[in-house]
């Protein structure tokens, strides 16, 4: 075992190498833009230079002169596409601001024309030769711009149910012995997956094939079919590998149906690779947020009052919000809780999911405030969490299915050397470097959604699993192969996994960290159907009940399939057994399977899991060094200890958590989309100016996986962890900066000019 492949503890699978490893290191893994097309027309987008107003006129004369130009599509000649409903309101679309429908412009970077040409170079040149006359209005950029409209989130979108509250916050806060009231801010951020937003489309008669990076091929298929007004079964989305997504490829963006309609008109495949800067508007982003957190506690640290108010930016077209109060109001034991979330509309593109959408901004606020409270109480911040730890959330009194928060803190603290910390701010130094230690809680809702799979077992032990899951770097191929191999008792090398294709049985969006729990639970169930047929053949009189458990899953029987499989096949007189099955989690609504086939998600879990509440937990520890002269900030050490139920594969789990911790550091120190407030325009829309960590920014990162078993969540026992690593880390960094410098920074990102000491 190596650092990259940690030895499995209790309730963990084997750290086998990735199923797709060879394809990825040899360049044979085919991403969307790698798919060969016959004589495609290359598309290049022309996007709006203004954020609000209208196009008065296009002068296409120079563009049309460029050799190889095939067509230029604007709102004046674009095909009418059916409107698409917003993803967060039960639809498919990332935005309802459908471009090319009218001359109106509602966001900077809105697609206003598409140039098609025989070569990429000609399309690019012609796009730059399109001359546009605008009538521009003054846009509203963000919170403090004039013209914003704020309204309570409740009632504006289906995804935000209510503002959680319990008890009497006002009274309890007033009576508290210690009070904290502070405001926090997080900036806009863009996912910037390495893979660009590419879309290739090809028609064969009235059937459409789409090659596009997608976290939800069934959603994309149904969404595009809706917009084109065609039968969804005529749409085939193919996407075996996604080059990073982080939420940006979960919902349908306007570009896909536009490319499909142009291709239909041209009777020719179309290939679009939106540029990096266009990507800042082509898809979604994490909007900026503001928070006011008020905490009241008794002198022993016991929380008596907690209030969290959040403000989030959205577009004029759509009410989007992440509403992280659903988690921050339930994280600690506190009898009096209040919360309120506001949506503030500006002239921007519609925001969307970005890795741990609610938790990154909302836990930054809460976990910073908890650290402030600990200092005011002169209490160790870990002890403050211990005093307020609970197995029952305070809002509805529901029990956590399992909660290893303090075990994570204790193991993490030991490995990090937390005890060596002198709790006084500015008390630790190494030459000109001020040293600070900080910690924070991380948690992420355990979520599941209905899925279907087909499993084929051959007499010789070869297995084929088909499920429209998504490989976004999460190790989907690998863990699905492991689930099937374990259940059917074959070596994992014998399992073929086919995913990323909308002709396969549907799986939910690879979002909300539900993927492993949902797909593995489903594959295990269908493997058990195969098992049942074999076992029946082997034991005709008792086979019906072998391996059945009351929950509908199945346990291992004593029968050894690996020894008796061939005999069972012979008894059945067949060489192949194939089973199809549909699985849904406890508490999923009655229309789950119908919705699943329509490309709609019925996700349950987290705070909405029947009479229970399900979360994965962890503890983040950070050492920062702040140069007392230059104020340079370095993070020499990051450590995270995590418990997330059954770990399918400690190797892929560790890598995702490690990447998450690094995202957390980036959230604290690097990432921010800079907005030109005069024009509501993103300024640093490229990878040189939008700061993401590079290798030299990231030294020592340690991940500790704790053993945890949870039998109440799903048959696989899995709590998703893809978004667990990057929650709370931003607060841990700021808490460490406070410890190093005595300065509390409440507005991200922390850049050296913000350090004043």
């Amino acid at each position, binding site marked *: 075992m*190596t*650092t*990259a492949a940690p030895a499995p503890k209790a309730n963990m699978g084997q750290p086998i*190498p*990735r199923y*797709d*490893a*060879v394809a*990825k*290191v*040899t*360049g*044979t*893994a*085919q*991403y969307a*833009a*790698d798919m*060969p097309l016959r004589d495609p027309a290359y598309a290049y987008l022309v996007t709006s230079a203004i954020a609000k107003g209208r196009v008065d006129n296009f002068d296409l004369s120079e563009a049309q002169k*460029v*050799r*190889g130009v095939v067509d230029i599509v604007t709102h004046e000649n674009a095909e009418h596409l059916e409107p698409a409903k917003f993803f967060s309101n039960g639809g498919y679309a990332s935005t309802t601001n459908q471009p090319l429908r009218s001359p109106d412009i509602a966001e900077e970077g809105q697609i206003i024309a598409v140039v098609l040409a025989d*070569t*990429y*170079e*000609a399309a690019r040149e012609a796009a730059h030769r399109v001359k546009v006359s605008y009538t521009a209005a003054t846009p509203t950029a963000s919170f403090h711009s004039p013209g914003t409209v704020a309204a309570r989130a409740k009632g504006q979108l289906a995804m935000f149910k209510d503002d959680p509250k319990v008890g009497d916050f006002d009274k309890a806060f007033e009576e508290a012995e210690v009070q904290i009231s502070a405001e926090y801010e997080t900036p806009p951020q863009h996912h910037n*997956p*390495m*893979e*660009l937003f590419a879309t290739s489309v090809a028609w064969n008669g009235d059937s459409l094939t789409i090659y596009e990076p997608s976290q939800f091929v069934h959603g994309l298929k149904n969404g595009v079919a809706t917009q084109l007004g065609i039968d969804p079964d005529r749409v085939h989305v193919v996407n075996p*590998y*996604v*080059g*990073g997504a982080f939420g940006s490829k979960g919902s349908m963006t306007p570009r896909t149906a536009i490319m499909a309609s142009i291709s239909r008109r041209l009777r020719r495949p179309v290939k679009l*690779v939106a540029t*990096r800067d266009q990507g800042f508007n082509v898809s979604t982003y994490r909007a900026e947020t503001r928070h006011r957190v008020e905490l009241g506690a008794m002198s022993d640290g016991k929380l008596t009052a907690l209030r969290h108010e959040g403000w989030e930016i959205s577009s004029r077209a759509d009410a989007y919000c992440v509403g992280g109060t659903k988690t921050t109001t339930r994280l600690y034991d506190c009898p009096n809780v209040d919360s309120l979330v506001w949506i503030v509309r500006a002239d921007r593109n519609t925001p969307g999911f970005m890795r741990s959408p609610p938790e990154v901004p909302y836990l930054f606020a809460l976990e910073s405030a908890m650290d402030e409270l600990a200092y005011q109480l002169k209490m160790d911040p870990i002890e403050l969490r211990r005093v307020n730890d609970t197995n029952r959330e305070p809002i509805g009194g529901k029990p956590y299915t399992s909660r290893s928060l303090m075990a994570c803190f204790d193991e993490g603290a030991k490995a990090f050397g937390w005890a060596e910390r002198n709790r006084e701010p500015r008390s630790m130094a190494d030459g000109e470097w001020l040293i600070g230690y900080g910690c924070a809680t991380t948690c992420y809702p355990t979520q599941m959604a209905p899925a279907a799979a087909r499993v084929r077992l051959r007499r010789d032990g070869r297995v084929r699993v088909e499920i429209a899951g998504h*490989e*976004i*770097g999460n*190790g989907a191929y690998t863990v699905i192969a492991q689930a099937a191999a374990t259940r059917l008792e074959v070596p994992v090398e014998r399992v073929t996994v086919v995913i990323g294709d909308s002709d396969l049985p549907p799986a939910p969006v690879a979002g909300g960290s539900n993927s492993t729990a949902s797909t593995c639970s489903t594959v295990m169930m269908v493997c058990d159907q195969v098992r049942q047929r074999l076992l029946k053949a082997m034991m005709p009189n008792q086979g019906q009940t072998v391996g059945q458990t009351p929950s509908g899953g199945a346990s291992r029987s004593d029968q050894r399939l690996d020894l008796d499989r061939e005999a069972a096949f012979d008894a059945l007189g067949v060489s192949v057994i194939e089973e199809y099955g549909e699985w849904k989690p406890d508490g999923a609504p009655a229309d789950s399977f119908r919705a699943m086939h329509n490309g709609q998600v019925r996700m349950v879990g987290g705070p909405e899991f029947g009479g229970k509440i399900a979360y994965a937990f962890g503890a983040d520890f950070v050492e920062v060094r702040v140069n007392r002269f230059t104020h340079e900030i370095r993070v020499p050490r990051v450590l995270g200890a995590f418990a997330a139920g059954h770990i399918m594969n400690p*190797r*892929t789990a*560790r*890598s*995702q958590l*490690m*990447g998450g911790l*690094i995202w957390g550091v*980036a959230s604290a120190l690097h990432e921010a989309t800079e907005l030109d407030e005069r024009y509501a325009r993103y300024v640093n829309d*490229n*990878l*040189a100016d939008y700061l*993401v960590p*590079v*290798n*030299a920014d*990231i*030294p*020592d*990162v340690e991940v500790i996986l704790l053993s945890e078993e949870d039998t109440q969540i799903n048959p696989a026992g899995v709590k998703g962890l893809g978004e667990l690593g990057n929650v709370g880390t931003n607060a841990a960094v700021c808490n460490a900066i406070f410890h190093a410098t005595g300065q509390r920074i409440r507005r991200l990102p922390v850049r050296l000019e913000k350090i004043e000491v």
Partner: protein
Amino acid sequence: MDDKTNPQSRSSFNRRSFLAGAAGGAMFPLAARAAEPATTTIPSTQDPTLPVPVTLRVNGHDNALNIDARTTVLDALREHIGLTGSKKGCDHGQCGACTVLIEGRRVLSCLTLALSAQDHEITTIEGLSNGARLHPMQQAFIDQDAFQCGYCTPGQIMSAIACVKEGHAGNDEDIREYMSGNICRCAAYPNIVAAVKQAAPEILSG
């Protein structure tokens, strides 16, 4: 010095063939154009967007193309030769996903015109493994789980091989610094450092 290995003579050869090719159209074979005098100029009426013949030597094979003169090595590989292992992540030389080796040096193929790479030996991710036998750096990336989504991986591996051969893989700090031109948004960085360390001795001894 043999003309074939003299970069100076090859460089001027290339410029000549480009000028002549642009002037003479696409149909002349390479040898005929090479024989023309170096003073050939582009007539002012010549449309510079006409395709030009370009021969790219990739992974030991010559590829004769007829492409827009503005085509980058990256787009030539991906759109015209069919080698899609090299990836486009920014098209601005900011991310490193397109990194290939040209004469053994790591080069951002999105910032390199195909015309300027003629007759130079280009090595891409597809040219590393010997049949089923992986290059030591490819194996090290698997062993150390040095990728997640895999999109930056071809560029990381090409860069890592050059990093070792440049002598910049002596310690962790050097590896981090000299691998910082390749962004990994999944942030597999510590594992990438481990992979470079693992493969370095074998590459240097081989």
